[in-house]
């Protein structure tokens, strides 16, 4: 049951004008067994935070602890605990089928082809994965996204990190993904942290982490944040700007 603690996290990326601050002094503590939504404008630091939690991005300062352990020291245990799905770089082999892609990535986690087949079958209803034997390059953007989510769940991770899970989805498939989050992933043994721009996704969350220009604006129970005047105002403005 992963308990995530983030302490004074700072991340900068080099840029032509010096550096861009993706995260600045962010500290949050996310209770286990819950669904957490990270919200904020584009460039607020949502994806960077997810990648640092997964160990694929190193922070410049600060620490992240998973069940009290520094994630930079967890190595393989972190990899087994985390299921990461970042939409901007799905990382699938275009010429392989969805099934063969998952068989490959599953093998990296010690799963056999039969394990992967069983996972695909069990996720088929929740994610509508279509024909698993067609080349990945023939899938629509929405279907590619659902295979990405399926891959992140293959090894049954305790900490699920999803970046815009309903991206590129039509309303029907977006609803299926939300149902998966609410009905199957919300359980004592797992914690879900998802970055999102969508109001409907937010409704599935128990708590919210609100980032703005790399800084933490607020975090806590969804009902508390969601009824906050500043949050309501920001959300309305960002909707008008066409972001969520």
């Amino acid at each position: 049951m992963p308990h995530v603690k983030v302490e004074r996290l700072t991340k900068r990326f080099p840029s032509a004008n010096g550096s861009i601050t993706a995260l600045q002094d962010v500290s949050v503590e996310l209770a286990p067994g819950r669904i957490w939504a990270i919200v904020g404008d584009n460039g607020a630091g949502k994806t960077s935070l997810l990648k640092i939690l997964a160990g694929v991005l190193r922070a410049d300062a600060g620490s992240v602890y998973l069940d009290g352990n520094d994630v930079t020291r967890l190595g393989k245990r972190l990899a087994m605990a985390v299921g990461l799905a970042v939409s901007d770089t799905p990382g699938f082999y275009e010429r392989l089928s969805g099934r063969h892609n998952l068989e490959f990535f599953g093998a990296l986690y010690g799963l056999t082809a039969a394990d992967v087949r069983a996972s695909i079958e069990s996720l088929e209803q929740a994610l509508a994965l279509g024909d698993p034997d067609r080349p990945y390059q023939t899938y629509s953007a929405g279907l590619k996204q659902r295979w990405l989510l399926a891959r992140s769940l293959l090894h049954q991770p305790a900490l699920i990190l999803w970046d815009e899970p309903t991206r590129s989805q039509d309303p029907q498939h977006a609803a299926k993904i939300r149902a998966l989050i609410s009905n199957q992933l919300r359980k004592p043994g797992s914690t879900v942290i998802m970055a999102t721009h969508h109001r409907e996704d937010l409704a599935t969350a128990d708590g919210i982490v609100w980032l703005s220009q790399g800084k933490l604006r607020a975090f806590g129970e969804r009902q508390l944040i969601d009824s906050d005047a500043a949050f309501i105002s920001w959300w309305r403005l960002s909707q008008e700007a066409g972001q969520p």
Partner: protein
Amino acid sequence: MRQWFSVVWAFAVRDARIQASLKMGLFISASSALLALVPFFFIANMIGAGASSVLAAYGGDYFAFVLLGLAAGRYMNAAVAGFAGRIRSEQQEGTLEAMLSSPISLSAFLAGSLVWELVWTTAEVGLYLVIGQFVFSAHLGNANLLSLMVVLVLGLACLSALGLLSACGVLIYKEADPIGWGLSGIMRLLGGVYFPVSLLPSHLQAAAAFLPLTHFLEGLRQAVLQGRTLAELKPTLLLLLGLALILWPLGGAAFSAALRHLKRAGTLSFRS
């Protein structure tokens, strides 16, 4: 250990499946091998017996000599440029990040990334040799297969380590392979692919002695063209082993450092 082999096998299956999806791959390999050999067949005919004194240590036949040079050049391309190119493609497609967020060890990742490239290149080189022997009548009948295998393993270990260094350049600079380009160019020029190293000026011969390709090719030619035994090849084999023992830790450490750099820079996945 079993899991390590399972992971390497998964890489090989992945790459074999991708290769199988490239319908023209085998045809292109076969025709490339044929086309690469034709000019050298005529050059060898033109040279005739004129080069036999220079090539006496290799049996005197220029075509057989250069055939093995081209074969080693293919291995060099696969291990150095091929590996670096593959890593760059993985970085651009985001699969590098996906793999490195999994629990695989660096050694399994590296071995897995190389294995199919080397298997496929061995098939290509086999094709070169078959065409060379049966179409162009190269004399390869004296080959000592055990020596050939040992030379191949040690030579590929050295070249693969250079591939790691080359991949570091690709990962960090995020563009064409500057290290591999330099290494391959120098080795092709000085390593004895097209002519014996003994023809080079003495200072370049001294430089060639530091290149793994020089010793790989020497061992390959002695094993295949002169049928030398392992005992006879001992000095060359020891040199290759020594180079592998130096280059692999160096390449592995450089590759680890490159990955750490990418994790800091946030460019494990990078779309150009």
